[in-house]
């Protein structure tokens, strides 16, 4: 169980990205985070694994206070939290295999890893992870030779290598076209249902939220403005989160006036 308590983040330039945000996520949930661009979704996800240091508040995961962890403990915690990014964040010049293997960095002997040495179980794991996302044939390609959808699958495979109990996905499908968006989210859904991995995923489209999420929170100007079941997220509530002018976009391609 993940508890976020009174989380606040003020950037050095004075921007208040999160204001006193509290919520809890139960084991096995698929939590969607929605909100306008700039509402603090990315900041929230990064405060959970402390890629961004929160200004105040606590994040407690399975009884461990992440916000109080020493650097060493933090790395131990992080290796169980997979992360997936909008821009995929692969090392473009490295091979798919190297990118996927880098998901094991928190586990392997750090000195051996500097020489690019990984145990053979990790190689097998990498092949398995790539098979799972359906691109095992690209294992020796350079990452930048892959299409966007394929790159995101490498990103998922990298997260899988961590044997995560929690996946943070920051707009994983915002750079992809609708068909690919569904296929990527289906992988996450599969992981969530079959492996019981908790997923926290920021999303932009109402229909995706309805289709995949088990619970939704909404952010507006860094404040929590909605918390509930996807079906509670009616057009009216969606408008509250996104503002009066919001257009409700469906991934099917059409557009509904909000």
């Amino acid at each position: 169980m993940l508890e976020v308590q009174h989380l606040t983040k003020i950037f050095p330039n004075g921007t208040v990205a999160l204001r006193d945000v509290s919520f809890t996520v139960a084991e096995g949930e698929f939590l969607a985070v929605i909100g306008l661009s700039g509402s603090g979704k990315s900041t929230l996800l990064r405060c959970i694994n402390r890629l961004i240091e929160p200004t105040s508040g606590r994040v407690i995961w399975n009884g461990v206070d992440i916000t109080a962890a020493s650097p060493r403990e933090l790395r131990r915690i992080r290796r169980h939290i997979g992360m997936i990014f909008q821009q995929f964040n692969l090392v473009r010049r490295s091979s798919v295999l190297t990118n996927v293997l880098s998901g094991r960095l928190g586990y392997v002997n750090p000195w051996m890893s500097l020489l690019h040495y990984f145990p053979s179980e990790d190689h097998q794991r990498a092949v398995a992870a790539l098979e799972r996302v359906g691109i095992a044939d690209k294992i020796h390609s350079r990452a930048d030779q892959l299409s966007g959808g394929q790159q995101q699958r490498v990103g998922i495979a990298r997260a899988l290598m961590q044997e995560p109990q929690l996946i943070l996905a920051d707009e994983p499908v915002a750079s992809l076209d609708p068909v690919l968006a569904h296929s990527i989210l289906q992988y996450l859904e599969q992981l969530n249902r079959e492996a019981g991995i908790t997923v926290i995923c920021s999303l932009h489209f109402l229909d995706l939220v309805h289709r995949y999420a088990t619970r939704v929170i909404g952010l507006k100007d860094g404040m929590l403005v909605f918390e509930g079941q996807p079906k509670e997220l009616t057009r009216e509530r969606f408008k509250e989160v996104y503002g009066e002018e919001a257009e409700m976009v469906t991934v099917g391609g059409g557009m509904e006036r909000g």
Partner: protein
Amino acid sequence: MRAEKRLAPLLSLLLPGLGQIVQGQQSRGLGLLATVAVLGGLVLWQKAPLLFVPLAALWLWGVWDAIQSARNRSSGTVAPFLLAAFIVYALGIRATEIHPERLVSGWPSIRPIVQALVRPELMEYPKESHIGHLPFQVPCITPLPPPQGQASEQPRLTTDVPCAALGETVTLEGEGFLPGLDVEIWWQNPIGDYQRVLEEGVPLVVPADDEGRFRITIRVPPTSVPLDRRPGPGETQTHRIEARQYRPYGSLQPTETLRLVIEKIGETIALAFIATVLATIFALPVSFLAARNLMGGHPVGRAVYYIVRTILNIVRSIETLMWAIIFAVWVGLGPFDGMLALLLHSIAALGKLYSEAIEGIDPGPVEAVRATGANWTQTVVYAVLPQFMPSFLAFTLYRWDINLRMSTVIGLVSNTGLGFLIIQWIRLSRYNAMATAIIAIVLVVALLDYVSAALRERIIAGSPGGPKRGILRRYGVPAVATVLFLTLFIWSWGVAEVDLPALVEGAPAGLRITRAFLFPDLLTRPTVESRVTAPLVVPCGAAPALTAPPAEGPRVALSLSCGAPGDPLVITGEGLPANTDVSVRWRLPDGSFLRIKKNCCRTDGAGNLRLETQVHPLMEAKEGTAGEVEISWKQVIGGYQPSEALVTTVNLSLVTLLMALLATTLGSIIAIPLSFLGASNVMGRGPVGRAVYFAARTVFNLWRSVEPMILAVICASWVGLGPFAGVLALALNNIPNLAKLFSEAIEEIDPGPVEAVTATGANSLQVLVYAILPQLVPRFLAYILYQWDINIRMSTVIGFVGGGGIGQQFRVWVGLNQYAAAGTATWAIVAMVWGMDYVSARARARLI
């Protein structure tokens, strides 16, 4: 296991790579074979037998690799790569005569230069001098004769003794000096040379007290008199001690040095200006001939296109400074020489750039304008020029940049401008003056960088062409600009001493050098020289006749065996090789030779020769020895061999390539850590970080403005002439250039992967290896290759001022009028530059 798998290691032992080839790894095998062969050749070339040890290790690695791949295992390429690199660098260090200890031992010779750099001669007060002098005898003899010369009365100097030996100490007292002002002690030897009196190596200075007196112990300079001018036993010489005070008065004035430097800055700018303007004019028509889209239609046109392109490429790959040396043969040293060199290289470079701009013209708009019914001129004005102008302006401005940089140093070889001042002043050890010139160059170049960056921005963001509003803007501005331009042009023409008659007068020399370049000295055949002689006694009976000519085989017969000077003489040669150039000479009684006739002689088809002349007056017998008439000729034995010039050229070309490699390596190693200081994302937003960042960037930019040729001049006085000085100069030039490029690469690191790898729980070293280095290494390598490419070009000219390599030899050959050998060197340079251009372009394409 198949047979070839079992045999593979054995085959690899026999010939490196063979085992890999039979197992189907052709490229790996051939690569290994080529590497071992090339490295083996280089080791033999440098006669470094110890390096056969790593070479053998490389060979054995090939065997091991064959075993591994027979077992279907792969062995990496790190070990062989390291071995090969070790051999190459060991050879490089040897071939380029790297002696790090000279950095220390040579320090005293450049310390004054470095110190001078912070004390340029800019302004000074005119000074009035106040000098007292006193004759002094060295050494003491008894009785002591009166000294030659008088002592000064006011101020007055006295010594405790009237004489002393070299190296002895003397107490010197002075009175009547200007109170409170420093006194310098000078020593004048009997030959008249002055030197400062030193104390522990430091020039002696003593202040005069309030009453204008001083008292000091000095040592008679032990090296005051050269060994061959010392007095004999029982003799003495009169020296002179001087005590000098200088008092500044009046107002601060620019020094003579500063005035000269400013004048030469003008000359530098003029050269660059006129060369750029003329180059633009010449390059435009040339560029039409080199544009594929204009010339491609017709076979003749295509032939012209290829020929023009090739010539442009050859001319371009010979550096401007090298052209200056070549043109110096044609028109003599001076500004005109430098201008011609800048001009020719610019025409080639601009011709290529313009032609590419023409090739880039989009035919669409041309078609569209023509479709409106426009005629040819209208089409050019409305569709072609608007497309061509921006690149034309950008390229011309870019060339002006390069020419100004070049013209600051072209004087190092053509005796003009700032470069000449530097060469002259370093020879005279006037380091402060030299520092003034160096600083001037740095400032001119740095200022220029700034101005042209600003100009370029304006051109890129410029308003669209077309008529301007307002009379003044429409006619006034262009009129003023034209007048300014013409004034500048006329002034530059004068300063550059453009001397068209010199081009014509020097043409024979120019043609000779051109011919030598077209037919370089590549092959020779070994020859033996044979000779036959006949004695000639002048006058008759003055000496016994020497040996009689043989009756058989080649021989020379004279119509007289003795006679008086001026007597007619017929020389006949018989039995000589047919149709051969021979040389017919007087062998004078003193043993020296004198040609009998110019452009003579050639034997006929039967091997005979006849020459009518008169007995030369110098043939008169001396001390009973008579002279002879000699016919000599060269006969070829054996086949063609590489000429000495070719061997030297190949040798020095390898040295030059290694110089460039070592300099690039050294420069990169130092630049990498420095580059982090100049990367804004590494230094952060804190005040200290920002300050370091700005300081680093400023230092890089200023340092970059120090031309490599100037660094070479300084390095040559630091570690001595030779390739080491060249390596050092190039490396010093590479450091700021690479550091700047590296900083930019660091700033462009994508933070995404860094974040992603951090999120997996990796530690910071792992983040460095997995997220940062993969982004940096390829770009760094690409920049390093690019720098190596530039270094090869520069290392061909750095030798002109003592940096070793092929350039140094080229200048020597030109100086000795050995143009064919110089031509060989030139072609080698063209080949190296082309080869490296090709390799580095391909390698960079793979990296990026």
